[in-house]
């Protein structure tokens, strides 16, 4: 029986940042494989390369060396437009600081990526309503981020990340600016997303979130040291 093709696979990934005092190696020959519908948590001390690895997996950054394929496509061979398209339609991003557009309502923030992807107005309306109900904010659709709590903003951000039905959800410290109770609520939401078939890779210091993942990778000094 042949193993299922990985959703994303990175081999021997290295990322160096040139600095005035000398190059800094944030990621050092790391290899990783994420399968469809898998739930992976990446933990480690600050500065160990977790976010760097996440950015490479999300095609937001490019490795200094090593290879990365997404759904079988060599990311290094893709131009910026193609990588943007992958990020828009196949990957969802959830950030620590939410990064919602402050001048748009919750509804408009969730609808925006769908419009960018060319989804029709009627489909956008249906999908946006569905997503906001999914994250429990059906009664807050006309509220702007300034009128929402931290947890509510993060739920809107998760809805936005799921707008175009991505195969992979990447979350960088999604509970980093939330209290424990709210962080648990977000973790519950991730469970639901995973149960519905979306692969999740979450970088986190939160033990509760990490415990929910099916696989946990520990990083230190730019390397994956334990699994």
């Amino acid at each position: 029986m042949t193993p299922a093709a990985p959703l994303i696979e990175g081999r021997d990934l290295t990322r160096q940042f040139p600095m005035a005092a000398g190059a800094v190696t944030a990621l050092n020959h790391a290899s990783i494989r994420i399968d469809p519908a898998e739930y992976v948590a990446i933990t480690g001390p600050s500065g160990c390369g977790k976010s760097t690895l996440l950015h490479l997996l999300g095609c937001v950054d490019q490795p200094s060396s090593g290879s990365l394929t997404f759904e079988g496509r060599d990311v290094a061979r893709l131009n910026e437009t193609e990588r943007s398209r992958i990020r828009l339609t196949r990957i969802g991003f959830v950030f620590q600081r939410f990064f919602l557009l402050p001048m748009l309502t919750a509804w408009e923030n969730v609808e925006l990526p769908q419009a960018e992807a060319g989804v029709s107005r009627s489909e956008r309306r249906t999908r946006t309503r569905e997503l906001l109900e999914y994250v429990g904010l059906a009664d807050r659709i006309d509220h702007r981020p300034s009128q929402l709590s931290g947890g509510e903003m993060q739920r809107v951000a998760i809805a936005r990340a799921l707008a175009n039905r991505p195969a992979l959800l990447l979350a960088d410290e999604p509970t980093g600016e939330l209290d424990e109770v709210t962080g648990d609520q977000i973790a519950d939401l991730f469970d639901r997303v995973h149960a519905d078939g979306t692969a999740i890779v979450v970088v986190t210091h939160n033990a509760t979130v990490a415990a929910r993942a099916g696989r946990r990778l520990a990083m230190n000094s730019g390397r994956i040291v334990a699994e």
Partner: protein
Amino acid sequence: MSAWGLAWRTVISNPARAVLAMTGVAVIGALLFNMLLLSRGMLVSFRDLLDAAGYDIRVAGQGSALHRLPIADATPLADAIRRLPGVQQVALIRTDTAFAFVAGRERDGVSVTFVGTTANAVGSAWDLVRGASLPDTPAADPAPIIVNVTLARALQLEPGSMLRLRIGGAGTALPPVAYRVVGVGTSRFETMDEDAATTTLQGFDAAHGGEGHDEAEMVLVASRPGVSASDNVAAINRLRPGLRSMSNDQVLEQFNEHAFTYFRQISTVLSAMTLAFAFLLVATLLTISVNQRLGEVAALRALGFSRRRIATNLLCESALLVGIGGLAALPLGGALAIWLDRILRHMPGVPERIHFFVFEPRTVALHVALMTATGLLAALYPIWLAARLPIAATLRSEIVS
């Protein structure tokens, strides 16, 4: 949400900054609009003034603008020009300064611009408000005269009043001559606050002691419809070589090359400076806006928004700032032009009907084109900033900060 929709929401998310930016663009745009109006205004107005007089050729004597000899034997010349096949109408113009007063009130008299002309020239140069024009046939003594509103007001003249004119200053030996006022109006060529009076050639000669000098300062010629003024100019030059015959187009060309060129140079320099100010204002505001939203921009790029989409959003923001400000600039600039025009028309020697700022549709089109180009250029650097943003590094630094 379209790029325009997102741009609008971004612009109005900071209302104070938006209003200040648009007001700044409106003020700068108003100045630009004024400079564009000034760049052609006087020329257009002068052309209208020349054309409205009804004559398309002007014949003057030899000499310079400071000292020009009168045209001798003016009547035979006028008759010869009148006989040219391409000529429809001819008028003689004689000018001098005179002292005008009402009998018994010489102390209240005023200095006037005194013109003698053929009767058919009056209708095209004067707008009468009371009374009638000069009669076609020579009238009996006293000669008829038309006075402008300023003179009529100064000496309380009405049609039927008697007016006395003495040529020259206080030391003149010529006696004053009586005229009957037949009409009151405004001359197209009078300057502000100027006192002016026009009579027949016979009446003009009477003021000069009736010496019968057949001279004229200028001969006005109207070409027949369909006949080129330059052809008639050539024919007149053949009739009497040495005279300065010029069509209205040639007069305008000379005016454009000598007198008007200074206005045009000034307006060009000031137009360039206003555009530079507009560029700097919009570029600075957009750059600050982008720098304040780096995290947002990086997040949008991480979510899959292309560089082109980010650039389009910024272009739309620039277009909104410049577009709304630029539109507001038009009525503001128009009001400013009216005010400045009123001031400039008080310059000595400038006919009252000359305007320095003249509205033409092409000026609006040029204004729109220049403001559009400025808005596009001003967005280039902010677009470059946003499009070249390192996504991962920006997200990282936003979190750290």
